């Protein structure tokens, strides 16, 4: 019984100058539904100005391990179709973060594998821990008009009661209760 909607990967852009970043996934019946659900799940708080979604099956992903094993190049020559645009995403750090891969740019290729090879040749500024490539025509974006951006993302900014900082002065500072710290700590915090 197939009652599960397709899975969509969600990319969120925090500010106009930051890249879109993979933040997780949603299940949805169509692109519009996916974008709406993505907004409710991943943009309940600041900041966001734009979201992209793509069906999980349209995302071609390689871990560093897979790249080392040569899995990415195995099928590179079989791409016989016409060249099309691919969006390229890359993970570059294991540091704690709420996101996975970042958008780094696009390439023209005849297959996802070729797109990866081009990406590896072109985006060389730092080591990649994971790569995603997605055909550009499979990536759907939220309406970029100012009006929509405002109505979708601005309301979250005003809800300061959702922020932990809003409650910053509740009770005494935690350091007071920590072992081995004296009164001096209270004054600096």
């Amino acid at each position, binding site marked *: 019984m197939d009652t599960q909607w397709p899975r969509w990967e969600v990319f969120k852009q925090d500010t106009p100058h930051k890249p879109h970043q993979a933040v*997780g996934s949603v299940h949805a019946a169509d692109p519009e539904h996916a974008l709406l659900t993505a907004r409710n*799940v991943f943009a*309940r708080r600041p900041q966001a100005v734009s979201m992209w979604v793509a069906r999980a099956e349209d995302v071609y992903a390689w871990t560093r391990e897979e790249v080392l094993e040569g899995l990415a190049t195995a099928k590179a020559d079989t791409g016989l179709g016409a060249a099309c645009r691919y969006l390229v995403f890359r993970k570059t750090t294991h540091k*704690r973060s709420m996101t996975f891969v970042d958008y780094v740019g696009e390439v023209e290729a005849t297959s996802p594998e070729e797109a990866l090879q081009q990406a590896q040749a072109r985006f060389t500024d730092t080591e990649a821990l994971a790569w995603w490539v997605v055909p550009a025509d499979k990536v759907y974006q939220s309406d970029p008009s100012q009006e929509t951006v405002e109505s979708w993302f601005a309301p979250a900014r005003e*809800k300061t009661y*959702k922020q932990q900082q*809003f409650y910053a002065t509740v009770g005494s500072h935690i350091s007071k209760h920590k072992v081995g710290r004296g009164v001096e700590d209270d004054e600096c915090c």
Partner: protein
Amino acid sequence: MPIKYGVPSDPDYNERLREFEARIARGEKIEPGDWMPEEYRRQLIRMISQHAHSEVVGMLPEGAWITRAPTLKRKMILVAKVQDEAGHGQYLYHAAETLGISREAMLEALLSGKAKYSSIFNYPTLTWADIGTIGWLVDGAAIKNQTMLAACSYGPYSRAMVRICAEETFHHKQGKEMVLLYAKGTPKQRQMAQDAINRWWWPALMMMGPHDKDSPNTEILVRWGIKTKTNDQVRQEFINEHAPEILEAGLTIPDPELRYDEATGNWLHGPINWDEFWQVVAGNGPMNKERLEARRRAHAEGAWVREALEAYAAKKQKTAVAV
């Protein structure tokens, strides 16, 4: 994404296991697509889906109070908090899905009663002070656990936890603020706050799970970096933070044996009633049946929404703009 996992009977299992454990020792995250032992995958699915179910069921005790919040401000805070719990469920189901289990299978396990969720959500919320206390103690306990899990070796779980902790801190602080206000309020409000602490203190301590000596999974979970602390360590951190704060607020803690130990700097607690814990886990808690029935009813009554969305999608096809 292909999932590659190994079992001890594989000819190259020991070699790959060594590489895998070396990666974890170097602080690398294991990502979907990387090789992993089948047991690592199994433990992660078990833990993450149980976590996700807890977030979803956790909406029920609080959701019931949205219409009864004392002020508009408190209502908005509670709506935001309950919405966060739904979102946390989504982040976590996503993390579990990267291990090759379907959302549908996980939901089925919850609705059929096969899957577990945190035992604490099987207790009733009797007064508005319970809502503050859940934020302070229950979310406080959850954060201790989740901060530890944010350092988990599995990338998607770790990322979900970082996101959840950031939002959970709001839950914790607004709950603490609410209880502290009641503690300074009228005698009736103080009594409500005290009653709520009395009812939630022990269930909050049980949330971290059995003592380490009774927790069969802990050793392998710590070895593979899924957990970085044991149940008892997390419980101790929770008590050390919350016990002095509750006492400072002029409230008491329902544990006659609770005392501060100068030598270790720890607050030591009396014996926990594990019989009660296992009864609740086995489905015999005060609210187990109601919670599951509410989930099943919500799923059944939401069927028309799912059907409508499908019909709309079929009719409309592509409307959003591709990049």
